[in-house]
């Protein structure tokens, strides 16, 4: 029977299958961070259990870490410090590799996995974080889990799970000027909704997806969870292999050749059948952003704030009214008239080198609007180092952006980087929920280039006027 990429990975990781269909699957790679792991380690300790495969586990602190240079003198905030220290103690006790804050390899968990070659095609990857879907860009089955499951994986290197359904999202055509991976994924979420892929694993396919860099593919897979999907996948190809070759934890020598030969067998069979198929014409996607408090509230930058009175569905209408009120917006307002207070560039969605290059290209020779605070938070120490080598930091600082240390930062505002009540932010992150970037804060999700244009203009802006 023809199989999808997902079917192939799932089947090759089956350890046991119960009569009722519940499966035990093997986990090849486990990423651990400070927020969702303390209770898991505590559980192991109290049951006198060990970590079964510390060699398949990699830990880093990212959610809570400050992004200011003085962070090496210690985290000021007591609870954050305790959580990061707890992780450091746990990895020492259980023998897990850990990138501490003073390690150049430290960064957002979903950026460092690929960077190190820890993320590999055909593997199963989990992390106590919903954006684990990012690693699907490599053709790995990667998904977020809760803390009880983190403990389960630490103890047994397996998970109890049931198979998901297959969905394929095909993007063909040609991307217009100023349209990026972020615009594609926002358009997809806008089309199918935040619960559109619940119960499914999405495979992204089509000529547009194939033409994307690994970094762009990660942006797409990253936000699969915002469409409700368990995971996102892209078939591994030459672009994937080229990215991985010679990464510190990627296979070397003869192992590399064997791995590549195996990886080439992974793409879905041509006649594989999907439970659901969606297709999207890239030519129709404009630079896209969100207006409301759900990632599905998308609109092209040339558009206006939508009118709830035109919506029939009662549940939807109520949600729209609530969102308009929270966002402080009125139906019919042109997007480009909306003033922003802050700009956040970073996160596991858009904190990689390619993203920072896109921002620098817009920022070069221009100035951040005087009323805007614009933060650039590289996704990892290595991204930061590479950007500095190219001089991107100088361009950005000269234009008035703040150049920060790596971490999750204002994507979820667990550290000091956050919005004040009523402040509006152009953000390259992944969630625009109420309070996500700070209580009362108002988030508009968009691509790095669009966020840069907003920083310069002081309002939401059409990046095509800045190219």
């Amino acid at each position, binding site marked *: 029977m023809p199989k999808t990429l997902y079917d192939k990975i799932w089947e090759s990781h089956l*350890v*046991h299958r*119960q009569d*009722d269909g*519940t499966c*035990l699957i*093997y986990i090849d790679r486990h990423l651990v961070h400070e*927020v*969702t792991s*303390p*209770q898991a380690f*505590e559980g192991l300790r109290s*049951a006198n*259990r060990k970590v079964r495969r510390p060699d398949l586990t990699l830990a880093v602190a990212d*959610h809570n870490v400050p992004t200011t240079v003085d962070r090496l003198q210690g985290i000021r905030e007591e*609870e954050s410090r*305790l*959580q990061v220290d707890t992780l450091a103690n746990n990895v020492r006790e259980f023998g897990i590799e850990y990138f501490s804050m003073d390690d150049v390899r430290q960064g957002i968990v979903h950026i460092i996995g690929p960077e190190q070659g820890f993320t*590999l095609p055909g*593997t199963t990857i989990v992390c*106590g*974080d*919903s954006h*684990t879907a990012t690693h699907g860009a490599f053709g790995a089955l990667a*998904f*977020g*889990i*809760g803390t*009880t*499951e983190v403990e*389960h994986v630490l*103890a*047994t*290197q*397996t998970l*109890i799970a049931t198979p998901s359904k297959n969905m394929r999202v095909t993007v063909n055509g040609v991307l217009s000027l100023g349209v990026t991976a972020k615009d594609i994924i926002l358009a997809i979420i806008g089309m199918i909704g*935040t*619960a559109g892929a*619940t*119960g499914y694993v999405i495979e992204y396919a089509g000529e547009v997806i194939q033409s994307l860099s690994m970094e762009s593919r990660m942006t797409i897979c990253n936000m699969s*969870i915002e469409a*409700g999907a*368990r995971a996102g996948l892209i078939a591994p190809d030459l672009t994937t292999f080229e990215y991985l070759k010679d990464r510190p934890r990627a*296979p070397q020598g003869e*192992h*590399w050749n*064997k*791995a590549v030969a195996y990886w080439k067998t992974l793409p879905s069979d041509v006649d594989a059948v999907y439970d659901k198929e969606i297709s999207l014409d890239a030519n129709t996607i404009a630079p896209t952003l969100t207006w409301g408090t759900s990632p599905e509230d998308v609109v092209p930058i040339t558009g206006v704030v939508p009118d709830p009175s035109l919506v029939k569905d009662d*549940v*939807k209408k*109520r949600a729209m009214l*609530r969102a308009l009120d929270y966002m402080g917006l009125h139906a019919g307002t042109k997007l480009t008239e909306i003033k922003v207070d802050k700009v956040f560039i970073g996160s596991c969605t858009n904190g990689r080198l390619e993203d920072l290059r896109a921002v620098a290209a817009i920022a070069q020779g221009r100035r951040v609007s005087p009323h805007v605070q614009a933060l650039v938070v590289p996704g990892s120490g290595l991204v930061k180092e590479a950007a500095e080598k190219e001089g991107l930091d100088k361009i950005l600082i000269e234009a008035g952006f703040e150049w920060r240390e790596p971490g999750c930062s204002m994507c*979820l*505002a*667990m550290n000091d980087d956050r919005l004040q009540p009523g402040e509006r932010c152009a953000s390259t992150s992944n*969630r625009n*929920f*109420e*309070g*996500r970037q700070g209580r009362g804060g108002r988030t508009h999700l968009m691509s790095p280039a669009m966020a840069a244009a907003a920083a310069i203009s002081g309002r939401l802006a059409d990046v095509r006027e800045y190219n």
Partner: protein
Amino acid sequence: MEKFSQLTGQAAPLPVANIDTDAIIPKQFLKTIKRTGLGKYLFNDWRYSPDNQEVGDFVLNKPGFRESTILIAGPNFGCGSSREHAPWALLDFGIRCIIAPSFADIFFNNCFKNGVLPLVLPQDCIDQLMDLAQKGVPLTIDLETQRVTTFPHNVHFDFDIDPFRKHCLLKGLDDIGLTEQLISNISVYEKNMKNEKLWL
């Protein structure tokens, strides 16, 4: 994990779609290294004003609903992050069952690991239950027979649940304990992988 067999109690109606985990438990409370004590922060930004006063018209602050053990909500409940702090906060508050037309995947999964039942019913049943709950009518949820009943109105709805998950909830089974019975299968798998995929 505490067993779940039958539950009778007041249900709090919260007719909002896409209630995300940031709303259930905002990030400033994720800095804890414990599982307990999060109930007082459940729905923090909806329950309390910025100066920490109770918001009077939020359902869990209303008389009769302050000790709810069931929550009835809109579709796609629990979307967003994987934080298990969300079911921990609900459980710590005293809520053992959430009834909604649909749930986000990771949240749904996390509930079962904590003895909390995420119960799926069609929207029209939800609407009826919301109405009754609003009037203060208590609900009874019986997991064994997979039935929600209200007294004295005697309205009842049957619900579906994965048989394995039902079994684990009824018995209060811990997953790791179950998996450890399969440890030899795991060792065999690892041995085979060592031969087949040397690069891992």
